[in-house]
């Protein structure tokens, strides 16, 4: 009786020891040893046209992932980075930057940047030694700047050696960074300031105080710089939207949100440059660039973590992280907010990057 009992237990346990992986024999990364499908199947080698979704993953959990959405057949490939390279992206995948035929994935809590071949997503190099990288701005084929959450520095990366070559001291957490007309602009989240950097001298040459937590920025077709402040994650002041002259750093336009808990973020421009999009607590908002007042109601309701506008079609994509511990959703919307498609990606989808021909 006892022996039967033990045998049953053993059989039960052995039956539960299933390996995770891609179980679809049609997929490129089919794993014949796997018996539990984990959504990592890769079906297409072409990433020439579509939407990359970078999923942050949970802090200290190492479950960041990269998904790819084919806009034509609406197919989604998840975990494509690990499926192709056999290693995880890391912890808190923060942003995507491309340059020529290279794609860079900035991984915040892993302190590294993956350099990939943009065509097939194969890892070329692993750039390590960054304090806690957030965003990357590529000045030329040799030099890039990387902002950091911790470490009080802007890191300088040599793109030929794929190594950190230096740093520029700054005050606290720095967030988005962009190149424009030979100069570099970045946001100081804790100093509440927009900075201008000369890449020839690696020196900050100008700055302007904006408001609590400048978090998101975009250049419009006229060369003006638009910046959103959140007002603080702990609701210190009303959030604001600024238009700044990038040459003089003069604030040419400023408007204030009415709700201290709005937490606006994810600033993006339509391809025509006529509309500005952002998300706040109640949904997705769209305003005309020439408007002097903020819109009063969202064009699409919901709580969204990431958002971006497809520069090829003008369609808007917003992400829903649900409980921040499961696969999130991406909503594909028309430019006026009509729902076109919904698809599932990885855990905490944040960054959307559009690739087109």
């Amino acid at each position: 009786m006892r022996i039967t009992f033990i045998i049953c237990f053993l059989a039960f346990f052995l039956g539960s020891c299933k390996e995770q992986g891609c179980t679809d024999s049609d997929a490129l990364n089919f794993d014949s040893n796997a018996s539990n499908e984990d959504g990592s199947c890769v079906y297409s080698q072409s990433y020439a046209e579509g939407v990359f979704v970078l999923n942050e993953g949970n802090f200290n959990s190492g479950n960041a992932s990269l998904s790819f959405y084919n806009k034509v057949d609406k197919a989604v490939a998840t975990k494509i980075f690990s499926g192709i390279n056999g290693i995880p992206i890391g912890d808190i995948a923060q942003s995507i930057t491309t340059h020529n035929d290279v794609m860079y994935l900035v991984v915040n809590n892993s302190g590294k940047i993956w350099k990939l071949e943009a065509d097939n997503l194969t890892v070329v190099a692993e750039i390590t030694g960054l304090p806690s990288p957030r965003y990357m701005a590529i000045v030329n084929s040799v030099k890039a700047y990387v902002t950091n959450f911790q470490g009080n520095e802007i890191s300088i990366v040599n793109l030929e050696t794929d190594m950190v070559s230096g740093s520029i001291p700054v005050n606290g957490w720095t967030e988005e960074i962009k190149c424009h007309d030979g100069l570099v602009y970045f946001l100081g989240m804790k100093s509440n300031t927009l900075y201008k950097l000369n890449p020839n001298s690696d020196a900050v040459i100008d700055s302007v105080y904006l408001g609590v937590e400048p978090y998101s920025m975009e250049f419009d077709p006229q060369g003006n710089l638009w910046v959103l402040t959140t007002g603080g994650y702990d609701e210190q002041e009303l959030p604001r939207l600024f238009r700044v002259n990038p040459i003089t750093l003069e604030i040419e336009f400023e408007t204030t949100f009415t709700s201290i808990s709005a937490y606006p973020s994810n600033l993006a421009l339509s391809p025509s440059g006529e509309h500005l999009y952002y998300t706040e607590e109640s949904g997705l908002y769209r305003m005309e660039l020439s408007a002097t007042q903020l819109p009063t109601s969202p064009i699409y309701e919901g709580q969204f973590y990431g958002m971006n506008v497809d520069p090829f079609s003008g369609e808007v994509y917003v992400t829903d992280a649900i409980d921040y511990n499961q696969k999130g959703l991406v909503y594909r919307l028309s430019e006026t907010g009509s729902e076109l498609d919904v698809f599932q990606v990885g855990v905490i989808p944040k960054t959307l990057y559009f690739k087109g021909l």
Partner: protein
Amino acid sequence: MKNIGLCLILIAISAICFGQVSDSIVYPEVRVESQRISEAIGTSVSETDSLLFAILQSQGLTKILQTESFISTRSYAPGGIANYSVRGSGSQHTQVVWDGIPINDPMLGQTDLSTVALNGISSIRVLYGSAGLTNNSGGIGGTIELQSLQPRKKNGFDAKLNLYAGSFGAYGVGVQLRDRYKFFFGTTTVEYHTAKNNFPYLNLATLVDRERVLEHAQVERIGFSKSVGAQINARNTLTARVNYSQVDRELSPTMVTTTTKEELFDRDIWASLKWSRLGNRSSLNVTASYIYGKQEYSDNNEYTYNHLYQASKNLIRYKLYLPYNLQLEVGGDIFSEHAKSDSAFVNDSHWRQWQAIFASLKYVPKKWVAAQVLVREDVINGEFSPVQGLLGVEVRPTNWFFVKGNVSRNFRAPTLNDLYWRPGGNEDLKSESGFSWEAGFGFKTKGKKFNFRFESTYFQSEIDNWIIWLPLGSIWTPQNKRAVSSKGVEAQLTTSVNVGKVMFRLNGAYTYVQSEVSEGSSQTDNSVGKQLIYVPKHQAKGQLSIHLGRLFLLYGHEFTGLRYTTSDNQSSLPAYQLSWVTIGYEHVVKKHVIGLNISVENLFNKAYQSIAWRPMPGRSFMINLQYQFK
């Protein structure tokens, strides 16, 4: 003899100790039960075997519970922060009590098992489900009971020294002293433990330098306990106890993160003064206690955050033996908790006043059937919590077979972090509450050469208002947005056979837990119907030992099933099995006992992860030398 005496004096002066006083190192002892929670009838309780306690003590409470009980534990590194799950619940749903006094951190709502200094502890029990409701609320999953080192029963003095050293820079030393002179008694324990945890591992998350050694994972623990007491007369006893522990830990990086400078320092003090009075047909226990906990977390910028909590916890328990085999027990608690944090509460202080009363009536004849009904009410900051209750029954139609079961209602109050975290704390949170029931059966036989006990229990619980932290705008805030349903089976087998001079012992435990979200946080929430994260559905553990005189060989095996790491169950950690072996011998010369154990952990050098991307050690060795003066 003179030298031994000198050694003992030196040991006492240096006050560095480890170990457990018992009559024998090899064989389980009979324990004193006076300090124990009187568990509810119809419920399940497991107690750590004293042999395993002695062998595994150097590896800490997490390892002991993982090896023997139905608890599932997971730690960030050996000796690192440890979480646990009982019957599919979370760490916050398990009360940890020291001599009946709840010691969970009111800010976090849980106890870090790795901070408990075990040298001042004589036994560990796990009371499953509502078994601990006779003593405390909040243990929806169960209650972990730590019983302090008990005093000698007879006049005299005994002592124990424990020294150990092992792989990866682990070593420790400890002393236990107990004495009694007529009506006065006392115990003293001191311990020191450290481990570098610099074990090699394969980093699966990088392309270069995959063979690495874990860095920044050192642990250092110091523990001290002292009790003094007086038996005032035949009826009255007064006992004062204090238990101190401090743990200094480096927080190691994961495979996917960069090097870290993070460190965590914990200091815990538990102190109590207890008056016990025995009547002809009654007993009264009055306990006043002071609980102190301090945490200093140093981040990568070497900035230190401080959390501090203090509590006075006063308990009264009165038991009256009535005619017709009835036992009436009534009790009350008056707790006052205070917490201060420079980060969580932005330097604010918060207080919580907590009162509770309960009444229980047990019917306990010597044979056939026992039953219990219990009602408990807690009042927190003037607000009445959900009424709790239990109805339990146990039937023994023969002396070798029994069936038992209970239905109960329990609750868990929000933590102080849930209520007051800035920003995001939600003072409107409701307590999690729900109903649970269980039913089980068992057999047991006891003979000169053959002992056998088997017990199995089915349990089920439905918990509403489950608290989950979600963002509202930019601010993460706790909300009562989920419901969780748990059910499962526990089975335990204990047997021993004597063949000539050789004794064979086999302990085995298996648990199946299905703990699922039954109500989601939103319409798109895919966690509904899915297993809670890091709760394995299957878990089994067993130990086989062979004893010949005072020589023993013990083989332990542990199976932990697949654990999901995301709430939609789309990602998981694979199951793993671990084995360990210990060989030990003790030599007795009159009142002196010398014992030597050698253990090999992770015998087959398996690579596994308890928490995703956290490397765990491969094969390791430990040698343990014990000296006992009885």
